[in-house]
């Protein structure tokens, strides 16, 4: 037994059952699915490298700060705040914009996508518009939204609404398209009305696609809000990073980046948990 195998057994994450006896693992997705051991190792190694590297003075702290100074900044900013706002207020400012912009995008995008999936006229009218706006990065609209509504909350929310809208339209449209015709036919011959078919068949059937769209939209929104705050804002994690960089406070910049990464990761985990709970049939139909 190799050292790694013994180590894995120690931590209780070695392959189990039939997986152990597989002779072909190259190209077998199930055989490579569980990489938790290696995840732990890679995170640990990175953390070690960072710690040791800065302790030995390999890089100038102006370019890359030590873990200790980032941690100190974290303690001090979460206590005293930064630029008139506490750390949590900065985080909340960014999250709030996302929640509002994303929700608006869903609120308009999902019904529009449904209408496009159900009506030839609506589809025909909106297809060119959706297909035109979809590939434009939302950040390209920053100058325009600033001209329209300044650097306050409204411009950010408008931008995020735009970012989420097209993704949700397309997800909802795809959701409607994924309904098997036999399900619709079955519902009709069971006596369901059009309205009932929309609510009890088409809507639940499209939930997996809509949820995938929501996950993508959330990711895009998070990236967009941070970038938008880098350009123009008065609060938010992106704003914090931008101001700190002007003072060469690399430790705060890195702290901001880590917070952005952790929250983005957290949102995705949350969405996936929610998905597993709400749509247990996904991928099993």
């Amino acid at each position, binding site marked *: 037994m190799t050292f790694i195998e013994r180590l894995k057994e120690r931590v209780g994450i070695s392959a189990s059952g039939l997986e152990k006896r597989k002779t072909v693992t190259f190209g077998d997705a199930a055989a490579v699915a569980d990489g938790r051991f290696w995840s732990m190792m890679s995170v640990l190694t990175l953390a070690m490298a960072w710690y040791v590297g800065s302790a030995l003075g390999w890089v100038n702290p102006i370019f890359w700060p030590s873990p200790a100074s980032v941690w100190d900044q974290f303690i001090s900013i979460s206590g005293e705040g930064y630029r008139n706002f506490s750390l949590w207020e900065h985080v909340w400012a960014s999250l709030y914009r996302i929640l509002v912009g994303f929700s608006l995008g869903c609120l308009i995008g999902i019904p529009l996508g449904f209408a496009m999936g159900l009506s030839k006229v609506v589809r025909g009218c909106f297809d060119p518009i959706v297909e035109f706006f979809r590939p434009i990065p939302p950040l390209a609209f920053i100058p325009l939204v600033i001209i329209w509504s300044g650097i306050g909350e409204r411009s950010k929310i408008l931008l995020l609404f735009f970012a989420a809208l097209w993704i949700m339209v397309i997800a909802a449209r795809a959701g409607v398209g994924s309904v*098997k015709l*036999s*399900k619709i*036919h*079955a*519902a*009709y*011959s*069971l*006596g*369901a*009305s059009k309205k*009932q078919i929309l609510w*009890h*068949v088409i809507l*639940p*059937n499209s*939930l997996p696609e809509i949820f995938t769209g929501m996950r993508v939209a959330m990711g895009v929104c998070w990236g967009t809000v941070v970038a938008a705050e880098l350009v123009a804002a008065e609060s938010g994690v992106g704003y914090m990073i931008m101001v700190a960089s002007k003072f060469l406070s690399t430790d705060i910049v890195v702290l901001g980046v880590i917070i952005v990464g952790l929250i983005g990761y957290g949102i995705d985990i949350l969405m996936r948990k929610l998905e597993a709970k709400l*749509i*247990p*049939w996904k991928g*099993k*139909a």
Partner: protein
Amino acid sequence: MSELVVNNVSMIFDTPDGGTVEALRDLSFNLKQGELLSILGPSGCGKSTLLNIIAGFLAPTAGTVHMDSRELHGPGADRGMVFQQGALFEWLSVAENIGFGLTMQGRPKHEIRQTVNHLLETVGLRDFGNKAVYELSGGMQQRVALARCLANDPDIILMDEPLGALDALTREKMQGLVLKLWKETGKTIILITHSVEEALFLGEKLFVMAPRPGRIHKEYSLPFAEAGLTQDPREIRASTAFVEKREEILSMIWEMEEQIMGTAEV
């Protein structure tokens, strides 16, 4: 007593390359309450088109379909459908699937529960009401589909290759269940199948259809379904009468296929 009357139904449609297809030509037949009809034929003979016309999902280019004296336009709860697979609602439990039609019609909850429990019993899924449909095997899913259709108490049940995706053993079991339901409920049933054995076993009446144009090539009246209610199905399938009919129909269909494809190069 309801009677289904199919009157001079034709179906012609255009193809993308500019041609036309005569999916059905001048088809007429009627089916009395409680009759069991199976329809067999090579692909392209229009059997699915016919079923979709009766179900009301397609409007024929000529001819009419009547239920008693009422002309049928569009789908309705009087004609239940059982599809091959994947027509169940995965977001609903087994019981909710079976009760779907009654729920949509706004029937009282206790009545729905009663009907669903009775049907779960009938199709042999007594303890499966709260299961999710995707947890069931293919055969069990088709039992749910049959029960869901019966819950609505339709005048006629249309089956579009309902057992086509099942393995041979499950398929035989399910054929027994279809016969049992036919006997117990007295419903009129039209069943489309690719399997000659199934068509013989599950058809009091059997239409062999031919393609180009789609039409009824030959009609049989068969004793096997009736016999299957009392005798061992395996014995019936092995009987000389059954085997002779099977060979006769098989060679008939082979001939049709050869006419379409040209002589097969083996």
